[in-house]
């Protein structure tokens, strides 16, 4: 399990929930300098905008590259240089290219320090659901999601805490089809940050509400960091 984020649970009552940029920035700040990191498709991609220059964090994209740079614009665009979301990107000094078996060997073999993934649901045991809505007419498409969830040393889920219909996405047990079992160690949401540890959920920070208000809004048991 990853190191504790905070000694005590911090309740930010003087503000509302985080917006997308604030959340991306928070995730970026929680990644150790020098880490090898894979940012999943969608919201996690925005985390790269907030990685400190000089942090030495190196980005992996599972379609075959280490040392990925920012999104390409204008003349930088090269159709042979894209990220896993198929967006044109750039190359940083020290980059390397490899084929798909080597790229997923890197992932599956536990060499990527942190993978940040979007989520439909995360369970208190760290199960992740992010690939399939489970609807009968849905066309299943998994891409590298299961490999990433299973392979990285640390998997951080990044999501809003509540779905559009108001139901919580941090749940006792996922109702959506799983991407990986027991793989998530940290959950970043607009309302709070959670550490998952062997079935226990420890709240590191809350945003715009107290610990007790947060606890009342979820169907899982929460712990304060200082009660561990």
């Amino acid at each position: 399990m990853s190191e504790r984020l905070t000694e005590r649970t911090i309740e930010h009552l003087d503000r509302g929930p985080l917006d997308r940029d604030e959340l991306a920035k928070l995730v970026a700040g929680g990644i150790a300098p020098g880490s090898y990191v894979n940012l999943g498709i969608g919201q996690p991609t925005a985390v790269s905008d907030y990685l400190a220059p000089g942090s030495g964090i190196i980005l992996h994209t599972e379609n075959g590259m280490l040392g990925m740079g920012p999104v390409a614009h204008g003349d930088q665009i090269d159709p042979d240089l894209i990220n896993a979301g198929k967006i044109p990107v750039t190359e940083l000094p020290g980059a390397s290219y490899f084929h798909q078996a080597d790229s997923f060997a890197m992932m599956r073999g536990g060499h990527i320090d942190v993978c940040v993934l979007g989520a439909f649901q995360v369970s208190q045991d760290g199960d992740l659901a992010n690939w399939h809505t489970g609807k009968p007419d849905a066309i299943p498409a998994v891409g590298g999601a299961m490999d990433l969830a299973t392979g990285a040393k640390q998997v951080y889920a990044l999501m809003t805490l509540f779905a559009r219909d108001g139901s919580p996405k941090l749940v006792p047990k996922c109702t959506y089809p799983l991407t990986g079992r027991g793989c998530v160690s940290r959950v970043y949401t607009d309302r709070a940050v959670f550490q998952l540890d062997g079935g226990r959920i420890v709240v590191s920070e809350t945003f715009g509400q107290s610990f007790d208000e947060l606890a009342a809004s979820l169907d899982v048991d929460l712990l304060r960091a200082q009660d561990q």
Partner: protein
Amino acid sequence: MVTFSPDPDAAVEGVQDGATVLIGGFGAAGQPIELVDALRRTGAGDLTVVSNNAGNGTTGIAALLAAGRVRRVICSFPRQVDSFVFDELYRAGRIELEVVPQGNLAERLRAAGAGIGGFYTPTGVGTLLAEGKETRTIDGREYLLEFPIRGDVALIRASTSDRAGNLIYRKTARNFGPLMASAAALSVVEVSHIVETGALDPEAIVTPGIYVDRVVLTHE
């Protein structure tokens, strides 16, 4: 021994009905568009297509699907914003789909090329995609048993070939090319450049010519 084909149609000659065709590319990067178009023109049908995606828009793999040539698709990510050709066939029950996690797909292709009979992967354990698969606990961790995916033919795109069929790729267009070239009985490659043997750095060759049967020069 590698041969150089005058055009894409000659390069794909001989693909049979019912063949398993490995098609390189991740999104547009590394897609052998001209070879896929030529494959469609052969009229070969009842194909199994193995590729990361299941076609975009109305060209390439999508056109092959639209022409009714494909019985079955093995891929990791069929659903995309512009995968309407596949989507429609799938919803109409007119095409079979096997979804494979991208890393398992890559490893199964590698296994085929490397003579490995099967392997245990942690990816997919406890998910819908594990259904019907054998599991085994090794050193306290659960794994799925996966088997090789062999192709009758591979259609891939590389950047440059020398006259011995040694290939290099460009950036993330490398993706599935080297694996598929090793996993098929017949490997067909479209390239943007052909150079003399000896012009490529022996330390930097990604696909040795031993994995290449036919090369055709196409537009970039």
